C-alpha cells in the first residue's frame, strides 16, 4: 500500500496533474477556445516535430549521451528534399532517401562517440555546425516551395473526422514503438544499464557501443522524419529550417523527468513534458501574454520541473555520476 502511494509520488504524476491544470485554466481563460478542436489541431501541429524527435532523444539521454545535432539533421533533410525536388526526383524516392541520410548522420555521431570514445556533447556540437553547414551548401539562400498540395495539405487538414493532425498520428505510432523498446525490451534494459553505469553494463556483456550506435542512428532517422514533416507542412524547404530547435527538444525531454546523467526517465513523462511545454505556450499566446513572459515562463517551468523532480524522487542522493 505504502509502496503504491510512493509509486504515485512521482514527477510523471505531477506532470499529468499540471497538464490537467493547464487544460482547465486554459479553457476557462479563453472561453473554450483552448480546448476547441481547431486549437488542439494547431497545438498538435506545433509540437509535432518536437514530440517526434523527443522519442529517440529520450533513449539517447537515458543511455547517458546527448544529441544536439537533431535540429541540424532536420534542416539538412529539409534542404535535401528541396535540392532533390529541384533536380526532378519524385517525392516517393526523395522521402525514403532522406530518411536514410538522416540515419547516416546519426551513424556519424554514433561512430564518433562509440569508436573514438568522444563525449557526445562535444561531438554533436560539432555536427550541429556541420550538418547545418551542409544544408546551406545544398540549398544556399534559396527556398523550394512548389511541393504538390497532396503532400502538403496535412499541414492544414486534420485526420478526417477528428482534430488530430497527421504528424501526431505518426508520433503516436512511434511512441508506442519506442515505449516498448525502452521500457519492455531487453534493448531498453541495456539502455538504462548503460546510462546508469557504462562499465558495469560492459562487464555484463551488454554491447555498449552497438546499443549507443543504434540509438544515434534512430535519432538521426527520426530527426530526418521530423524534417520531412516540417518541410511539407510549411511547404517550404530551406536550409535554416528548425534552427535552434535542439534546445527546445532537450528542454522538453528534461522537463519530462529524464535524468541528464542517464539511467533514469520514462517516455510517458517526456510526452507529458512535450505536451505541457507546448500547451502552456499555446495557451499563453492565445491569452496575449507577451513574448518576454513566455520566455521566462518556459525557463521557470524547467527549473521548477527539475527541482520538483528531485524532491519527489525517493532515490538517495549521490546519483550525480555522469555517463
Amino acid at each position, binding site marked *: 500500500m505504502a509502496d503504491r502511494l510512493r509509486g504515485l509520488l512521482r514527477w510523471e504524476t505531477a506532470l499529468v496533474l499540471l497538464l490537467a491544470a493547464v487544460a482547465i485554466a486554459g479553457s476557462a481563460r479563453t472561453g473554450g477556445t483552448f480546448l476547441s478542436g481547431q486549437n488542439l489541431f494547431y497545438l498538435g501541429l506545433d509540437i509535432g516535430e518536437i514530440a517526434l524527435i523527443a522519442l529517440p532523444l529520450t533513449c539517447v539521454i537515458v543511455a547517458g549521451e546527448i544529441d*544536439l545535432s537533431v535540429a541540424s539533421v532536420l534542416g539538412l533533410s529539409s534542404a535535401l528534399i528541396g535540392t532533390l525536388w529541384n533536380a526532378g526526383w519524385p517525392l516517393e524516392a526523395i522521402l525514403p532517401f532522406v530518411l536514410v541520410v538522416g540515419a547516416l548522420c546519426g551513424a556519424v555521431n554514433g561512430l564518433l562517440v562509440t569508436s573514438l570514445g568522444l563525449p557526445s556533447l562535444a561531438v554533436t*556540437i560539432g555536427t550541429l555546425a556541420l550538418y547545418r553547414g551542409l544544408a546551406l551548401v545544398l540549398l544556399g539562400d534559396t527556398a523550394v516551395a512548389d511541393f504538390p498540395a497532396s503532400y502538403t495539405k496535412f499541414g492544414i487538414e486534420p485526420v478526417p473526422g477528428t482534430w488530430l493532425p497527421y504528424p501526431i498520428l505518426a508520433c503516436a505510432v512511434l511512441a508506442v514503438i519506442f515505449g516498448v523498446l525502452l521500457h519492455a525490451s531487453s534493448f531498453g534494459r541495456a539502455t538504462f544499464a548503460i546510462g546508469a553505469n557504462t562499465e558495469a553494463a560492459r562487464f555484463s556483456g551488454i554491447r555498449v557501443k552497438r546499443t549507443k550506435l543504434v540509438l544515434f542512428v534512430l535519432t538521426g532517422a527520426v530527426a530526418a522524419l521530423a524534417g520531412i514533416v516540417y518541410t511539407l507542412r510549411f511547404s517550404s524547404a530551406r536550409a535554416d529550417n528548425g534552427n535552434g530547435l535542439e534546445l527546445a527538444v532537450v528542454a522538453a525531454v528534461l522537463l519530462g523527468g529524464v535524468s*541528464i546523467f542517464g539511467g533514469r526517465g520514462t517516455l510517458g513523462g517526456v510526452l507529458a513534458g512535450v505536451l505541457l511545454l507546448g500547451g502552456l505556450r499555446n495557451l499563453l499566446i492565445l491569452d496575449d501574454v507577451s513574448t518576454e513572459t513566455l520566455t521566462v515562463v518556459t525557463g521557470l517551468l524547467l527549473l521548477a520541473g*527539475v527541482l520538483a523532480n528531485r524532491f519527489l524522487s525517493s532515490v538517495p542522493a549521490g546519483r*550525480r555520476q555522469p555517463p
Partner: protein
Amino acid sequence: MTVTAAPPETPGKGNARRLIDRAGRIRELGIAGVLVVVIAGTALANPRFAEPQSIRDLLLNASIIALLAVGQTIVVITRNVDLSVGSVLGLSAFVTADLAAAHRGLPVVAYLAIGVLIGIACGTGNGLVVSLGRVPSLVVTLGTLYVFRGLDFAFAHGTQVNAAELPEGLLSLGSGRVLGVPHLVLITLLAVVVAWFFLRSYRSGRELYAIGSQPEAAVLAGIPVGRRVFAAFAVSGAIAGLAGALWTARYGTVDAAAGTGLELQVVAAVVVGGVAIFGGSGSVLGAALGALLLSTISGCLVVLGVPAFWQQAVTGALLLAAITVDRVVSLRLARSLRRRNHG
C-alpha cells in the same frame, strides 16, 4: 605497486610521471601549434592576413568568447556546465548600455562594475539553485538561459541603444589599445592568467578539480562542495557580466538579442581547449586558446575566400577534427604510459 621495500622512485615510473605532467602542456602546445599553422597557411595565401591590423582583429574577435571560456572552464572543471552565459551577457550588455546612456558622466570602471554586478546576480541565482537544490546544472542553466533572456527582452522592450548615445569613454575602451594591443585583449589575458594561477596553485582551486573528478569523494574529504560550486557559478556569472559590458563597449549598438546562441560556441571552445566536459581536468589557458582557434578558423575561411555557404560546414568539420585528434593523441599517451608502467 610492489611489496618489497623498493627505493621510492624507479626510473621507469619517473618517466611516466613526467609524461603525464607534460600531457596537459602538450595539449595546450598542440592547440597553439595548430593556431600557428592555420595563421601561417592563411598568410601564405593572403599576406594581408599577417599584418598587425589583422592579427589585432583576430585577437579582438576571440577576446569575448575567450573571456567567457575562462568562466565556463571554472564551472566545467567542477563537473557542471553554465549554458546561461549567452543570456547573462545579453542582459548585462543591454542594462549596462541603457544605464550608460542615461548616466554618461561616470568613470568607465563604473560601467564595467554594473555589468559585473548583473552577472554576479545571475551567477548567484544559478549557483544557489544548483548547490542548494542539488540538481543538474545543465538543466538549471538551460532554464535560466530562457529566464535571463526573457528578462532581457522585457527590459529592452524592442528598443536598441546606439553608439551615439553611449559615453565616449566606454566606447574607447572597446576600440582603444595599449602599445598596439586592444584593451579587450588585455582584459581577457589578465583574466586567463589570474584564473590559471588560481586553479593551479591554490587549495580552493585544486578543490574545484577534486569536486569535478569525484563529487562524492569530495564530500568525504571535507570539501565544502556546495560552497565551491556556488562560487564557480558566481564567478562564471561575473565574467559573463563583464563580457556583457565589454560587448557594449566594443559593438556600441546593443539590443536584446546580444549574445544569443553564444553558449554553444563557448562550450565548443572549452572542449577544443582540452577541458574534460565531465570535469576534473583541463586548464583555462587551453580553453582560451580553443576560443582563439575557433574564431581564427572562421576568420581564415572568410579570407581564404571559402564561399559563404561552405563556411559553417567547414567550421563544424574542423571542430570535429580537433576533438578527434586530441582524443587520439591522449589515447596514444595513455597506451605509452601503460607500457612504461611495467616497462
